[in-house]
C-alpha cells in the first residue's frame, strides 16, 4: 500500500507585504525556503540555500525567472530550481498558494 505524504500549508506573508523582486526567507522545521514575488505577481518558492556555499538566496537580485545568489552570483531558476551554466547544482522547488491575499508555501 502506498503512502501519501500530506503537505503542510505554511503561511508566508500577506501578499501586499511582499514587494516584487525582493525575497522573503521562511524557516520551516529548520528548513530554509526563499519565497519570491515576481514582477508579474507570480509567487515562487525554492530552497533558501545556494548549493554552492549555502548563500541566502532570499537576499539575491531577482531578474525575470531567476535569482542571483548574493555570495557568488550563482544564477538559480525560480521555476525548476536549477543552477544555470556555467555552474551546476539545483535547489528544491515548492508549490505556493495565494488564498484571500495570503501567501502560503506547501511543504
Amino acid at each position, binding site marked *: 500500500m502506498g503512502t501519501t505524504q500530506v503537505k503542510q500549508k505554511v503561511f508566508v506573508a500577506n501578499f501586499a507585504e511582499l514587494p516584487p523582486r525582493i525575497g522573503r526567507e521562511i524557516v520551516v522545521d529548520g528548513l530554509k525556503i526563499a519565497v519570491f514575488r515576481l514582477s508579474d505577481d507570480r509567487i515562487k518558492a525554492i530552497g533558501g540555500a545556494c548549493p554552492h556555499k549555502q548563500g541566502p538566496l532570499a537576499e539575491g*537580485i531577482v531578474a525575470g525567472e531567476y535569482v542571483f545568489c*548574493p555570495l557568488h552570483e550563482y544564477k538559480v531558476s525560480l521555476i525548476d530550481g536549477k543552477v544555470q551554466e556555467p555552474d551546476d547544482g539545483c535547489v528544491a522547488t515548492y508549490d505556493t498558494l495565494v488564498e484571500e491575499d495570503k501567501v502560503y508555501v506547501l511543504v
Partner: protein
Amino acid sequence: MTKKKLLIIGNGMAGVRTIEEILERNSHQYEITIIGEETYTNYNRIMLSNVLQKKMTVDEIVTNPLQWYEDNGITLIHHDPAIRLDPQAKQVVTADGQCIHYDKCIIATGSRSFILPIEGAELAGVLGFRTIDDTLQMIEQAKQYKRAAVIGGGLLGLEAAKGLVDQGMEVTVVHLEKWLMETQLNEPAGNLLKKDLEKQGIRFLMEKKTTRILGTSRVEGLEFSDGSTLEADLVIMAVGIRPVTGLAKDAGLHVERGIVVDDFMATSAADVYAVGECAQHNKTIYGLVAPLYEQGKVLADLLAHRPTDGYKGSTVSTSLKVSGCDLFSAGIIRESDDVKGIEAYNGLNNSYKKLFIRDNRIVGIVLYGDTSEENRYYKMLRNGTDIAALNPVTLLAAADEEAGASVAQWDDTDTVCGCNGVTKGTIVNAIHAQQLTSVADVVRCTKAGNSCGKCKPMIGELLSHVLGDKVALAPTGICGCTDLTRDDIVLQIHEKGLKTSKDVFRELGFRNAEGCSKCRPAINFYLNVTFPNEHQDEKESRYVNERMHGNIQKNGSFSVIPRMRGGKTTPQQLLKIAQVAEKYNVPLVKVTGSQRIGLYGVNKEDLPAMWEELDMTSASAYAKAVRSVKTCVGANFCRFGTQDSMGLGIKLEERYEYIDTPHKFKMGVSACPRSCVESGVKDFGVIGVENGFQIYIGGNGGTEVKEATLLTTVETEQEVIDLCGAMLQYYRKTGNYAERTAPWLERLGFEHVKSVLLNPEQSKALLAELDAAVAGKRKDPWTEIRSNEHKEQELYTVGRG
C-alpha cells in the same frame, strides 16, 4: 563516411591544447572524446598560484567551459579517470566502467605532485599543489590554521608560500639545497630572491632535509635529519612532480621515467601518442608549458596529415609569479669547461644578471631584479646570434635602442608569447584578417597570452600599433545582457530621457527583460546620477548590502558598523556598543581597517533592534559610496602635526557622507608628511603641511596597490572640501559602475581630470551639481528604517513555519 575516433586521456592543458590545434587544422576530421579525472573543465594550471595569491578567481582560470566542448562536438567524460588501456583492442576503460573504442589515442595524463615517501606523509593537512581542489583546500585550511610549512624552494613551492602568506598564514619554506630555485638560478640570484621573499614575510630553513612529518591525525610539524623540528599545521609538498605513467606501463608501453615518445610523439604502441608532462622525449621530461604546446603542434600536424619536421626538444625559460621578485632564467646556467659566464651586480637596485656563453653564443640567462632585457637576450639565445662583435660591457649594458624598442619594431618572426610560441607576425595577421579589436580577442584567436599572461601588454601595444585609435572603440558590453558599453548606455539614458531600469532594458534592447545581477545595480546607479530627482531608486536593484544596510557575511549574517566621524568616539558610545554586542551575542567585535568598530555575525532579524539600541548612524561600510574618513590625531595632540587632521576629516565626512559613488570612495587626512593614515593610497588623500594641504587622488591599497597622485596644494580647509566634492561628482558622472578611482583616473588620464578639477568654473559647477543631486537624499538609512515599521517588516522579517 564515418569519422575516425580520437580519444584523449587527460583533460589538462597539454591534451586540450593538442585538440585545439587539431580543430584549427581540420574541425571535421575526428570524432573526439576526452576523458578527465577532475571535476573541472580544462583550466590553466599555471594560474593556480594567482588564485592562491588572490589575484584571480577559479572561474577566471577556466580556459574551456563546457560550452566549448559542446560547440566543438567533443564528448567529455568527466570526473571519471581512465583505468585501462588496451592497445590491441584499441579501447580504454574508465573507473565507472565505460568502454571507449578509438582509432587514435593520445595520452596526456600529465603529472602529480611528488609526495616524499616519509613517515606522516598521509596525515591530514599534507597537500600537494597541483589542482584547483588542492588550491581550494589550501585556501580553506588557511582560514582555520596558522602555521604552514612548504617543503621545496622551487618555483611552485615559492608561489605556494607567497599565496599562503597572502591567505594570512605564517609560512616557512624548507629547502634541501643551499639556495632557492637551484635549477633555474645560480647562487647570487637565489640569494637575492631569498632576501626579497623574506621582506614579503616568508621564512626559510635552508639545507634542511625533512625526514618525518609529525602528528597523530593531523600534521603537527616536521622533523629534519639534524634532529631539529618545526611546528606546522599545514604542509605543502612542492618537491617536484612525477609523470603519471601507470596506465601506459600496465598496457605494456615503453616507459622509463616518462612514456617514451619519438619525434612525432608516438609511443611504442601503434596509434597511441603521448604529449605533455607524462611524455619523455630524447631522455627529457618537460614540466613547463611551452614545450607541451610545441609537442601539441607537432602531433596535430601529424594527425591532420600536415607536413611536419617533428619535435626537436625545447629551450625552456622560467619566471616567477610573485610580485616584487622579477626573475628570468633560460637555457644552461652552470659554467663548465666550454660554458663561461659574464655577470653584473647592481647594488643600487639589487639587480643581477649573468649570461652564459659558449662559442660566442648565449646559451643561458639568469636575470634578477631587472628583467627588462629578457626579450633581448632570449632572442639572441634562440636565434644563436653571434656576439663576437660585442664586448662583455656592451652586452651587459642597459638596452640599446634596438632592444628597448617597442614590440611594434620587432621582426615578424620574433616570439611575443613564449608559452605558446606565437610570433609577432601571427598576431598582426590575426588582427588584420579577423578584425580583432581587443586583447581578449587576440588571446582567443591566437592563444598568445592565454598561459602566463605576461605578454598581454605587448599584445595591447601591437593592437594600438595596427589599429591606431580603433582599439578604444572595441565594443564590450557591460554584461551578458547587452553589447552596449557604459558610455553608450548613459548617453542614451540622457538622449531618450529614460527614467527607469525597465525603460532602459526595453529601449536599449537588453537580451534579458529584467537584466542580471551585474547590470541591474549599474543601471540603477547611472539613472540615479543622471536623473537624481526623476528616477526613483530601485531597492530591488540594489545589491543585498545596500538593500539591508549591512555587509553580508559568508554565512548569511550581517555586520553592523556605526558611524564615528573621523574615527573619533566617546566613552558613552563605547559603553553602548559593548552593551549591545553583549546583549545580542555578537560573535565578533573588531576594529575595522578604517578605524571604526564593527560587530560581525549579526542575524538579519536583529539588525533594526540593534540599530535602535545603539542610537548611532550607519558608517556605510558596506556600500559603493563615500566611506569613512581615516584621520591621524593631528596638531591638537601630535608634536609633529601641522594641521587639525581630525577636525578636517570630520568635516569631510559630514559634508559628503551617504553619497553613492561608482565604487567605494575612501578618504584619509594626515596632519604631516609622515602620513600615518596612509593618505597616499586613498581615493582622496590629504596631507597637512605647514602652509596648507596637499591633495592626492586615485590611490588604492587594494588588489592592485596604486599610489595616489598629487593633484595640488591648497591653503584652506574649505578648498580641500570643495575640491573633494568636485572630484566626487566628476567620478560619479564618468565612472563605470564598480570601477575604483585608480583605474578611472588611468582611463580618463590624470592630466585631464586635473584640468577639470583645477578649473575654478568647472569645479564650482560640479560641486553645485553634486549638491543639487543629493539634496534631501543624504539620510542615515538605519534611522529611516527604524522610523518606518512597514519597511522594517518588509525587509527584515524571517518567517517561521
